């Protein structure tokens, strides 16, 4: 049977996504009546200006970040799983996210180094902005390194190994810095590794949306290449795929997605590896023109729900997002995989 584009399922997911968005912005440490939330969302006004501030400036940007991060990580993971034909691949497999961590470690842990001081004094950037920029720069450098290496290699498996090695190197360097840092610095860095969806607002949110949007469009446009790659590189080449160009586009878009999210939100795990599997099961399809938008929606939905859970309504503390994604997500994937009759997954 020819493949029918599953419009109904996608529309259903979109609706669920909207509902999850509403749920996420209605729940928080400060109790705000649902009616007021709607007022603020649709009419941008409310009796209480504090509530306005909270919903408009804190909750909505956070929910939007969750949507962007959910979309980006899922699609990035999908691309990595297809490119390497490995069901365990995730966005961090090329070492980009570890690269972002390296930049952050440089600012937080070896804080007195030349680059940081230069940035603080001469460029006038500091604090979380500096951290984000450092992460972007270092992730970008790793991406360029990976792209250069990919153009020289013929084999995808080698790429995987190189990515893991890069990840290993950055982790080692970070560990060295941690070893020589004060406890406060180590704690700061540790908190960064827990991930956080808050704090991406205004200009930063705009930048993140553009980068994610670009990455998603690139990924969707490379659907045909991804489909061909599923048969293996030999068949793909025999069908007319240019493996170098394919790798370039896929690695580029996957790195943009994973790198930018890690730079702005810290490393968020699990979403990238689990959502493509959930999507494939739900849509029973391997067509990437369906899987890319499907993963987007499911990833965004998942992360919104995790964010809602992390807020522990009424309490003043918020659990780190990484904790929730792992605790909530892992059982879901295990259940899904066990239900499959064929253990030969992917």
């Amino acid at each position, binding site marked *: *049977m*020819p*493949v029918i584009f599953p419009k109904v399922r996608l529309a259903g997911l979109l609706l669920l996504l909207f509902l999850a968005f509403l749920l996420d912005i209605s729940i928080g440490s400060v109790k705000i009546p649902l009616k007021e939330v709607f007022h603020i969302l649709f009419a941008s006004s409310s009796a209480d200006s504090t509530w306005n501030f909270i919903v408009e400036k804190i909750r909505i940007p956070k929910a939007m970040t969750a949507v962007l991060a959910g979309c980006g990580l899922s699609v990035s993971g999908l691309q990595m799983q297809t490119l390497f*034909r490995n069901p365990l691949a995730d966005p961090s497999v090329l070492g980009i996210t570890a690269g972002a961590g390296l930049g952050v470690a440089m600012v937080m842990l070896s804080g007195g180094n030349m680059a940081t001081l230069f940035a603080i004094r001469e460029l006038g950037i500091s604090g979380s902005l500096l951290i984000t920029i450092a992460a972007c720069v270092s992730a970008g450098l790793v991406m360029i390194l990976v792209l250069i290496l990919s153009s020289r290699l013929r084999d995808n498996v080698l790429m995987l190994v190189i990515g893991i090695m890069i990840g290993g190197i950055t982790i080692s360097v970070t560990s060295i810095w941690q070893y020589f840092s004060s406890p406060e610095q180590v704690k700061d860095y540790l908190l960064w590794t827990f991930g956080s969806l808050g704090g991406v607002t205004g200009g930063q949110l705009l930048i993140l949306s553009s980068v994610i949007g670009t990455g998603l469009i690139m990924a969707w*446009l490379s*659907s*045909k290449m991804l*489909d*061909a790659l*599923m*048969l*293996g590189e*030999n*068949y793909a*080449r*025999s*069908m*007319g*795929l*240019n493996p170098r160009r394919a790798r370039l586009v896929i690695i580029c878009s996957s790195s943009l997605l994973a790198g930018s999210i890690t730079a702005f939100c810290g490393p968020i795990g699990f979403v990238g590896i689990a959502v493509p599997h959930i999507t*494939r*099961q739900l849509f*029973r*399809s*391997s*067509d990437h*023109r369906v899987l890319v938008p499907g993963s987007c929606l499911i990833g965004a939905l998942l992360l919104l729900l995790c964010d809602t859970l992390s807020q522990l309504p009424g309490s003043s503390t918020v659990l780190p997002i990484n904790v929730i994604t792992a605790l909530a997500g892992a059982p879901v994937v295990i259940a899904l995989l066990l239900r499959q009759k*064929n253990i*030969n*997954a*992917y």
Partner: protein
Amino acid sequence: MTTPLIQIRGLQTGYQLSDQKVVTTKGPLTLEVQRGQLVCLIGPNGAGKSTLLRTIAGLHPPLKGNVEINGRDIRLLSPIQRAQTVSLVLTDKVRTHHLDVYSLVALGRYPWSSWLGGLSDKDRAAIEWAIDSAGVRPFLDRKINTLSDGEHQKVMLARALAQDTPLLILDEPTAHLDLPSRIRLMRLLHRLARQTGKGVLLSTHELELALQVADEVWLLQDPSAFYCGAPEDLVLTGAFEAAFAHEDIRFDKQTGTFTIEHEHRRPVVLSGEGLAAQWTQRALQREGYFISDEAPCSIRVSGAASWTMTRDGKSYSFSDISSLLQALKKTDPQ
């Protein structure tokens, strides 16, 4: 003179291992494949058949020489142009989950479909034709990881057919198939070549099937020994015999089959005619006997189902070969 579908000139294949060059076909080979021809590439394991095929398909660079398809050097073609000229069926296993048969066959339209993968009416027609030609309609909706080996092979063939190229190259397409499937596949390829005018080049171990369907056989005995010609010529010149020569097997030019050489050959006298006698001879040979004029034991086949064994003056009758052989073993143990 029409341009041959494949024109190979001065070809030498092999690959580069860090500092060493491994030559799999010394050549230099100069070969041709015409439209509508089925060519079988035969040779022992490890002789270099796969590398030669992949070089002709453009997946692998040759060490020397060039390959032209439809008059154009494959190395000068863009990947899409090459994909519109040659389609492949390889030994690679594709076991992607959730990929159904139709989608896999549809992927064959990659070099023709739109940049996002959209299929036109022409594409769909090609897919339908491929499905029917390869006979995969009965399991169109199934996921490919639930297919048997034979069904899987057919699906990969359908995909290659959907690609609609003048040349079809298959690497050991009959491996993992049972005998009826093997025969059916070879017959299908032969028919395809004749009816569609496609050129089909395949590598196989199935010497006996190849002898029946191939228009031309390329025999690659080892990197420096390459023979090509009509299969019958290769039999008569003794090329097959030499290529597969081995102390335990013998190529029977008469039947075009390989026979196993047995040890401990003892003589036995056999008389009789027809099919039963022929098959009795084979059974005796398996038991380690050879037919002679003089022997302590003699066997006579009468009609279609009656055997008489005479030994030391005594005669015994049997109604099937199995009991005959059992008796033989008892009286002549070794």
